[in-house]
């Protein structure tokens, strides 16, 4: 096994996770459950293909993708913050809605129930293994940037305060509602970028193409104990396992299904506290009347 090709493949697989997990960290640190990452990614992927298809420019696609994720995240925010709906239920609804809406529009715009036509993408120089894609580089730096935002900026301080102790934050003049709206919107746009990368990398949208990646991202958030850098490392770990599975294909050393399970099993172990208990933000998922 060539270590360079292993590493590059791992990073390419990790990029969608890195975007989505960074988004998940922000929303969850603000106290809003992020079971919606899957839906945000899917809507971002579809909107990016739609935009690229009609404009011919992947950059327009990126903007459309961000907008798609933003729309879904605002639905999520209005339902959970304004209407105080159960965040888990809304999460399930958003994911189903994203599947439904992308399927319906796939049919409406492209007259297909499985995939869009081929669209333009970034890069394409086969000698650099996908590293001429600006989104890939953005994905590599997104976690450190989020860490800076969360730990070093006033906004990040507010996010953490709102997620740990909303009443205290409110009492010193922080608008809990506004911080949460912004945090959820950021999570929607970032997760959508993960979907955008995926779709433009494959040059098309296919039905349910995110295939559970949003849930791997949420696993990384939990396994990384709600810290952007540790969540990013978890993303890399999960991506490494996947790369291993791909490179071992055909050797039958370990059934691929068992490698698929690794992120999920590690998350359960982390939650059960076998090695250093994962403790969520105190106000996560709580609705105050």
């Amino acid at each position: 096994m060539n270590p360079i090709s292993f590493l590059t493949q791992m990073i390419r697989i990790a990029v969608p996770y890195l975007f989505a997990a960074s988004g998940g960290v922000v929303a969850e640190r603000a106290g809003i459950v992020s079971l919606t990452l899957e839906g945000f990614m899917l809507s971002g992927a579809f909107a990016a293909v739609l935009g690229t298809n009609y404009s011919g420019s992947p950059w327009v696609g990126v903007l459309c993708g961000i907008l798609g994720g933003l729309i879904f995240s605002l639905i999520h925010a209005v339902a959970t913050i304004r209407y105080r709906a159960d965040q888990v239920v809304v999460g399930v609804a958003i994911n189903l809605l994203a599947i439904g809406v992308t399927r319906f529009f796939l049919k409406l715009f492209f007259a297909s129930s499985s995939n869009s036509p081929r669209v333009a993408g970034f890069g394409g120089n086969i000698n650099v293994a996908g590293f001429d894609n600006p989104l890939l580089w953005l994905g590599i730096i997104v976690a450190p940037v989020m860490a800076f935002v969360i730990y070093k900026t006033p906004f990040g301080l507010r996010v953490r305060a709102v997620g740990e102790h909303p009443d205290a934050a409110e009492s010193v003049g922080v608008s809990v509602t506004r911080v949460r709206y912004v945090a959820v919107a950021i999570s929607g746009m970032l997760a959508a970028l993960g979907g955008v990368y995926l779709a433009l990398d494959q040059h098309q949208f296919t039905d349910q193409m995110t295939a559970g990646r949003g849930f791997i991202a949420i696993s990384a958030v939990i396994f990384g104990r709600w810290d952007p850098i540790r969540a990013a490392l978890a993303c890399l770990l999960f991506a490494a396992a996947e790369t291993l599975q791909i490179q071992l294909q055909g050797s039958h050393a370990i059934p691929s299904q068992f490698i698929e399970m690794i992120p999920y099993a590690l998350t359960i172990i982390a939650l059960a506290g076998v090695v250093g208990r994962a403790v969520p933000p105190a106000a996560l998922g709580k609705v105050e009347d």
Partner: protein
Amino acid sequence: MTEGVQPTFTAAPWRERAQEALIPPLVALLVALICGDLLILSYGQSPAAVYRLLLEGTWGNAYGFGQVLYKATTLAFTGLAVSFGLRAGLFNIGGESQLAAGGFGAALMGLALPVGTPLILALLVCMIAAGLAGGVVGAVPAYLKTRFGAHEVIVTIMLNFIVLALLNWFIAGHLHVPETLHTPEIHAGVLPRLADIDPRFHGSAANLALIVAVLVAFAVWFYLFRARGGYELRAVGLQPQAAEYGGISVGRVWMRALTFSGVIAGIGGINYVLGYKHYYEDGFASGAGFLGIAVALVGRNHPLGVLVAAFFFATLSQGGLAIHAFVPKQMMDVLQGVVILAVAMAVPEVRRILRGARGRSDA
């Protein structure tokens, strides 16, 4: 009222409780109808004509109605499973894998039984196998929650992926008919179909599991509202600290609630395996577990409501096929999401409005 504001400890009157239960689903239905109109218009079709087609294709003929009943059966099981957990304050998102595990258990038992086993016996044994398989999957988050405080939502989601991957490995690697992803046909436990009783249902998959679903719904109702264990379960769901103080072991109730939630979803596997295909096929659950959450939510966690909601969502799903020539059936996927979202938003809102009105009239 010279004493100032009197605290009110009385339970809400039944009228208000009925309003609180029924208004959100009705609001959701209205919102879904409006969204449906927009989607149909975006396709350049007439909403009235499409809705008529939908009703004709579902409730208007025996085959369509049979298909609705078949789909409603699985949803009733997964919906009952979710609502059983929610009554204890626990969110079981593992319906998808519990249903699949149950179907797998039923198929294994159906394969193990000798040909010619009496139907009642075979059904019972297969149901036990299905319930056990689902119950084992449900017991894992129950144990992790009780023992370590691990949140059941995340654990059940993660377990979905793990269990489905395990089942896939088992089927793909060990127990499939060549060139397929399903087991051989079961030897015993094939359930009679509705069409065997009334030939007008010919071709539809509705079968005896429908009766089992209704019986399970009744059993859940009896347990929740007429048995001591159900009283404890609901007490824990309303206020765990108070229940603990009242002498109820919250951990034990959690164990019971999530495990039996898994059992109920698991038994749902018989509808497909014993009633329809007569084998276990990889991926047969295909979203029915997640829709169970919608069914429980719209059915307001009451067994009767769950049956009605299961029927409603089954109608949507079958209705999609009926209108497909004019508007893509994918429209129904959108409407499912819209309904869940609308109910989730309307439930707390309606409660606040009703409580607010009561607060004013009491003063």
